[in-house]
């Protein structure tokens, strides 16, 4: 397991974490290269389906970064994200992937060092948990088709 390099997806709110990541870069802070950052207009864009898809597509861990509570640019986006992440954690527990592979953190745009710290902390956690149980089971992703809603049929 020593050579296991986790694949981690970080969904970052544009107003805090995304800028914090920039700051971490400007400060030349080192953090694990396992993190794939995805920009969101607000953590309130968090969608359970997308979180599950990340795991389906091979992520070992996923985290959502939103603004400090009470500081959301859109007032309540980070609280909505928090509830959705909690629900998605329950789903992951049900499936047996484990809710601990998903987390939500809050930070501000000025917290570049905290961004790097979260990246290290979460990567350590996933490294300890090992690869996603899905990775070892099948090499091919099962087929999925979604032709869409009534109008497109």
């Amino acid at each position, binding site marked *: 397991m020593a050579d296991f390099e986790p694949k981690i997806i970080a969904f970052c709110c544009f107003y805090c974490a995304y800028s914090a990541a920039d700051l971490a870069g400007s400060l030349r802070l080192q953090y694990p290269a396992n993190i794939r950052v995805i920009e969101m207009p607000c953590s309130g864009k968090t*969608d359970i*389906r997308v979180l599950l898809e990340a795991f389906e597509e091979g992520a070992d861990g996923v985290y959502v970064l939103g603004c400090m509570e009470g500081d959301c640019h859109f007032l309540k986006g980070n609280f909505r994200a928090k509830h959705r992440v909690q629900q998605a954690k329950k789903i992951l527990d049900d499936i047996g992937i484990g809710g601990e592979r998903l987390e939500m953190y809050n930070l501000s745009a000025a917290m570049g060092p905290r961004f790097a710290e979260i990246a290290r902390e979460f990567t350590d956690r996933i490294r300890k948990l090992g690869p996603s149980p899905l990775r070892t089971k099948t090499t091919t992703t*099962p087929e999925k088709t979604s032709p869409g809603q009534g109008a497109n049929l």
Partner: protein
Amino acid sequence: MIIAEGKPLAEVAGLIKEAKKVLVVGCGGCVTVCLAGGEKETGILAAELRLLRQKEGNPLETVEVTLTRQCDPEYVEMLDKYVTDDVDAIVSLACGVGVQFLAERYNKWVVPAMNTKFAGGTVEHGVWEERCGLCGECILYKTGGICPIIRCSKSILNGPCGGSQGGKCEVNPDTSCAWQLIYDRMQALGKLDLLLEIQPPKDWSKSRDGGPRKVVREDVKIDA
């Protein structure tokens, strides 16, 4: 609308454990509005089932389709092209009506992904309450627009009963006594005298008493 709630994932997964390819069918009607079985929930359920099966080393192929409604044959027909020979089961996220319409049309193993709960409405985002008992003969004009059939725990027509305490029902302290609500409302409307009128017994033959019900409207039938 009809309020439904998703069954636990393990239960749905158990119902299709033999299947290799399933059609996961959402409904654009009531269950979309009550956030239980619309396009989004269909996507989530399909992803959950795929992940679960992938973890078990027995991958599941899913096809997601959300019909405008599952309780109208013209929309159900649109599913025909997706119900191919290699589909082993159909998972319906509609209410019990949709599940039956699919089961009637296709010679496939059709399973419900929802528990259909009641006829109700949204009281706040994420909270739904029962409002109609579907009794077949509406008496809301007698009770100030508050239904004693479904909102009174005993469905009594001459309440309140002795279990009404401080405006709450003895069955559950969170439930308002329907008859207290009715009395208060009639009082506010200045129509308390209507409650003193002698009422004939309710005709329950229009409810579930006579078996499954049917409504026929000759004026709107197409084949004359």
